[in-house]
């Protein structure tokens, strides 16, 4: 078996009494896109900072390209490209100057730099703005330049810490395309952290879900979603009682019921057949339903099942509008009315 591009064994990092990363084991193969998915504060950035030699692990071990991040940081640095969470750029340089400096610091000769700058610019498409000072760039352009800077020395392993946080959907799609083409055309191993489930779903060959500094699940997006079941029914209600939950659990064909605030998620292998019984159960339990939606599972459902809370609370510009539309999942399902204002909600869900 080939040596993993990135491997960690019980890697952990403590700040005071707080364990930001509480022991994580990873093994990422060369050429893989690995999505590290978790909410803000889960420990994603701390892990990236350890792997790219900015922070020392408090415990455990991290190997990048076969080199120990704690003991051979100089060797690790030559193998990796990194775009940290906030595009770390110098506003008073032009994009080209920044890339050229980056190339110099990686020991590239003049002709190598000029070819590599041209190459990365074709990949990230900054256009003529490359000769303008970075302070004139939009957020999306800064991210793309940051990515270009991370690539200037042609690294085999790329760390992208929340590469699309705060970007508009169009810029986000552009970054996704760039990441994909790097991986496909060049075989770059990509370690990507994200709080956006769509991003992990869209890009990653494998996803690790991190919560409170621990890896709570790992697998391909499909494998992870299968753990939830085939279908998901989401009911948003005015108030949630134990009686409601018991009534739902009693519905034949329901595998699992997960409650979160004013929302209840019902997992079932055949959602269409249990949709009506679920609606009736809610009605019988006296629960006022705001919306009722049937859809296929998302990674957020996996996260909810594992941790009892949602991955994000509308952090993404196109985060699931689960409460009224419920149409965010990959396969927006049908909804039916469940009492109260459900008719409108059901129409929205169908739309």
């Amino acid at each position, binding site marked *: 078996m080939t040596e993993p591009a990135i491997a960690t064994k019980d890697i952990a990092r403590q700040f005071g009494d707080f364990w930001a990363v509480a022991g994580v084991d990873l093994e990422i193969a060369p050429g893989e896109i690995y999505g590290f998915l978790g909410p803000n504060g889960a420990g994603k950035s701390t892990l990236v900072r350890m792997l*790219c*030699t*900015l*922070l*020392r692990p408090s415990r455990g071990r991290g190997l990048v390209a076969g080199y120990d991040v704690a003991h051979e*940081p*100089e060797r690790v*640095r*030559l*193998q*990796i490209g*990194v775009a*940290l969470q*906030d595009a*770390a*750029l*110098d506003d*008073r*340089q032009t994009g080209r*100057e920044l890339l050229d*400096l*980056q190339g*110099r*610091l*990686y*020991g*590239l000769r003049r002709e*190598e730099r000029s*070819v*590599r700058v*041209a*190459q990365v610019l*074709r*990949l990230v498409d900054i256009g003529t703005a490359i000769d303008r*000072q970075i302070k004139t760039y939009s957020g999306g352009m800064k991210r793309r330049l940051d990515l270009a*800077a991370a690539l200037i*020395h*042609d*690294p085999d392993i790329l760390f992208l810490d929340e590469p699309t946080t705060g970007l508009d959907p169009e810029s986000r799609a552009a970054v996704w395309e760039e990441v994909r083409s*790097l991986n496909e*055309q*060049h*075989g770059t191993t990509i370690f990507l952290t994200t709080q956006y489930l769509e991003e992990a779903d869209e890009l990653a060959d494998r996803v690790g879900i991190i919560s409170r500094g621990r890896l709570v699940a790992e697998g391909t997006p499909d494998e992870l979603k299968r753990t939830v079941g085939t279908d998901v029914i989401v009911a948003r209600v005015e108030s949630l009682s134990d009686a409601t939950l018991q009534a739902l659990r009693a519905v034949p064909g329901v595998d699992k019921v997960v409650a979160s605030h004013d929302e209840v998620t019902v997992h079932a292998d055949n959602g269409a057949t249990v949709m009506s019984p679920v609606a009736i159960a809610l009605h019988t339990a006296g629960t006022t339903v705001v919306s009722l939606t049937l859809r296929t599972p998302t990674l957020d459902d996996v996260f909810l099942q594992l941790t009892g809370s949602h991955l994000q609370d509308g952090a993404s510009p196109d985060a699931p509008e689960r409460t009224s539309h419920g149409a965010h999942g990959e396969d927006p399902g049908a909804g039916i009315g469940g009492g109260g204002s459900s008719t409108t909600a059901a129409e929205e869900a169908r739309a």
Partner: protein
Amino acid sequence: MVGMLSTPTTSLRVQARPAGFFVDVASVARRAIRQIPREPEAVIPALIVPIFFYVLNIGALSKITHDVGHFSFKSFELPVAVVFAVTGVSRASALVTDIQNGYFDRLMITPVRRLPLLLGLMTADLTLVMALAVPVVLVGLAFGVRFHGGLLGIIVFVILSGIWGLVFTGLPYAIALKTGNPGAVNASFILFFPITFLSTTFVAKPYLQGWLGAVATYNPMTYILQGLRSLIVGGGGVPGPEPAWNAAYLGQAILAIAAFGAISLSLALLALRGRVRRP
């Protein structure tokens, strides 16, 4: 492995490698020097303020002194103007900005050696302060100041001033690297006042009285000004005929700069070590 894109030029694969110490220094310095004209707001006051005070002081105080030989108050004050121009000018604020916005981390992830991250900035500072010293000297010449040491005297004058400016940057860099706080770096400017004013800024040492005379004895600035003045008026700025080149005065100035530099640069290097040591 194939190249990233299909056009002929893209088949180039490159191998990252350490660039070498001096290349690292040059790369960091190059960026810093390039930034200077893009921040005229940081440079223009450093030039205007000393010229303003020079003109003001000689206008107001020349009348109460009398010229003897090469000595005149405008000659006596020119080193003060140059010291004002070169002291406290540094890239420390820009360094704090880098630390705060994460660009310093981006540099730290590259294979760049850590010492050039500071030395590169200092190289840029030395270039800038020497560039600032020249127009101040030209203003002095325009006012009729003549260097007893001739052209060589002017060159040594600018170099000594520049090196003083360089060693002073150790303090703001130490504060920048230690705190990462722009306010603290700006506050480092207050060190400028006791160092420049508790000295022979306006009158020669024999005329300083009481505690000021005592403090000036231990202030390196006293010896730096004395050395710089010796290049203009000969001797240490005291009226009277003196040889053009006074080895003792120049030696004391160099020693004062070296002693100050040993402390300030050590502090800066310690702070750099703390900053680049992975937490």
